């Protein structure tokens, strides 16, 4: 009796507590579901901090349509099941839009639910599949892999003129997705994959992988790893004297990797989708403010979070009301320029699938700094 009664009240208390984050007067409820612990903690934390900056700025300036933004951030533990639970929790409180998650697997599970609830979801995931499901409520904040990989492929084909390429990738959904899209693009361009090397999350010793690379003797090496692993790989590649150019996508050329790798990142080249080192003043100012407030260098996820919030602000002001359905309709095909909304940092356009289009860059690491050598125009402006 006693035991059961106690349990019941505990259960009720637990679930009751979980549902208290109700929207109050003059606020708009836009919760975020992010990877704050587990494998995705770095990405999720960056995304969150970027969002926080934007929210504070907007709230200080009076909010959106006079409503203060209320954004509780819920941890998914980088796990799909927990993501689903947390999304359900915020859906129960009728959000206007939902931010996150970043992990593609978690996006795939949550986007089914936001579609059903007709709530726009501003995601950080980059897997191609996310926007290929005819879902009118999902919006990206960065390139999907189906857009970034052709850019890399063009670069390898046109600039490096490689006939064969080796690919080193991290064996999780992020790395696998990148590798699959990349391989497809290489085949389309008639470039031979000389070595296909899978590595583990948290891998420490890359000597075997670099030995294999040397054996493959490819004209170029495409590296698609997370930050620390990128740095460890670069150190090992330098040590064993890899001669072929090392090509990366965004992460490999990030300042964080450059710092962590010491001198080993010198000469690395590649495509940079979204970077705090972009030759754009607004972006660099943002990066400086971010560094000052959070005491670390922001990665592309920070920019995603920041611009994502401003995206919502701009679209909402265009429709003039908090209407989730109207938001989703309006946001498709919208173009936002920094002139209209400075917080968007760079001109951005969302297409009918929710994919984002922006300028991007080709870069190179010179003297311990990322140097942008070429700006690639938006796809829609070609």
């Amino acid at each position, binding site marked *: 009796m006693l035991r059961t009664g106690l349990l019941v009240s505990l259960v009720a208390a637990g679930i009751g507590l979980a549902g208290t984050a109700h929207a109050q007067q003059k606020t708009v409820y836009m919760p975020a579901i992010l990877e704050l612990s587990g494998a995705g903690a770095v990405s999720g*934390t960056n995304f969150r901090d970027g969002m926080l900056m934007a929210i504070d700025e907007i709230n200080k300036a009076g909010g959106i349509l006079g409503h203060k933004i209320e954004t509780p951030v819920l941890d998914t533990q980088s796990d799909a099941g927990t993501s689903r639970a947390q999304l359900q929790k915020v859906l129960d409180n009728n959000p206007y839009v939902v931010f996150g998650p970043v992990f593609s697997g978690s996006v795939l599970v949550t986007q089914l639910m936001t579609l059903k609830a007709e709530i726009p979801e501003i995601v950080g995931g980059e897997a191609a599949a996310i926007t290929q499901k005819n879902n009118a409520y999902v919006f990206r904040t960065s390139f999907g892999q189906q857009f970034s990989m052709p850019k890399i492929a063009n670069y390898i084909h046109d600039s490096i003129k490689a006939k064969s390429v080796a690919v080193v990738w991290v064996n999780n959904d992020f790395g696998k997705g990148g590798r699959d899209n990349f391989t497809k693009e290489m085949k389309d361009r008639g470039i031979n994959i000389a070595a296909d090397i899978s590595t583990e999350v948290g891998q420490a*010793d890359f000597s*075997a992988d670099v030995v294999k690379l040397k054996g493959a003797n490819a004209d170029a090496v495409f590296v698609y790893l997370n930050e620390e692993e990128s740095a460890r790989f670069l150190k090992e590649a330098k040590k064993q004297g890899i001669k072929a150019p090392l090509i990366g996508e965004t992460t490999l050329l990030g300042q964080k990797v450059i710092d962590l790798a010491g001198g080993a990142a010198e000469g690395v080249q590649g495509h940079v989708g979204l970077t705090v080192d972009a030759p754009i003043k607004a972006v660099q100012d943002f990066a400086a403010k971010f560094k000052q407030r959070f005491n670390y260098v922001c990665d592309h996820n920070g920019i995603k979070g920041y611009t994502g919030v401003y995206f919502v602000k701009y679209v909402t002001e265009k429709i003039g009301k908090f209407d989730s359905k109207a938001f989703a309709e309006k946001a498709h095909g919208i173009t936002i320029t920094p002139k209209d909304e400075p917080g968007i940092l760079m001109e951005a356009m969302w297409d009918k699938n929710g994919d984002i289009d922006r300028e991007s860059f080709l870069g190179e690491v010179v003297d311990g700094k990322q140097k942008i050598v070429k700006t690639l125009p938006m796809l829609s402006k070609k």
Partner: protein
Amino acid sequence: MASFIQLLVSGLATGAIYALIAIGFTLLWQTSQTINFAQGEFVMLPAFFVLAAMNVGAPYWLAALIGIALSVVVLGVLFKAVIVDPMMRHGVLPLVITTIALSLFLKESVKDFYSSQAQPFPAPVAPRDLHFLGAVVSLQSVVVLAVAVLTVVALHLLLNKTRLGRCMQATAQNPTVARILGIPVGRMVLYTFLINGALVAIASLLISPIYLAKFTNGEALGMAAFIAAIIGGFNQVRGAILGGLILGVLDNLSAAYLSSQYRGAFPLVILIAVILFRPQGLLGRVEERAV
């Protein structure tokens, strides 16, 4: 051939680190039946002690000493007094749960109170590469290997050549008999925890320059040390060293010559084979305990 030597040498350097961590793991098991699932986090943490000390202005050598001292106190004394002692008599499983919770606690604490970002960590030696039979080895790896070997030799001497060490071994092998012989068993157990605290701190200093200091570092390290300890012999210090080295080399060789996608599987298959056909480990002795 050059690439084989490269794999071998790199594998040995990585394996030496696994060995350092695995030794502490086996020591704790022997004296207190603690299967420490937080051992990886124990290696992750001291690097942050050092970084914190350097942030308040301590030079590297002083920060390193502070890191080791703190690690001995927190991961040695406190860990034993607060967690292991009250739980020891309740069997192994509750303690296993507790160390799993402890590993989550340490990870999350570092993430929330220090940073979720990977931190560069100062290296004790200059970043130079040495050439050796066609293979390239960083000076750092050589130092790691050397320190690991020295530590192990010192530990071996301590355990086998000193009275204290023999008392500790007696405690590990049969606490009841040791107590009858007048050995202060409690203190001997404490010493093994202190040694583990120091070992993980040394491992942390050695590997953080290569792996970078990050709160998730313990996950892969802890598992590697665990596998190394079992392959080598769960109840022998020498076995842990052999296990560590085998694991480091095996990982490289299997990734290079067999399958990189299944690189993680080979050590596990060997682990299962060792347990089933030589449960005392490659160098371990048969465990004999009165029922």
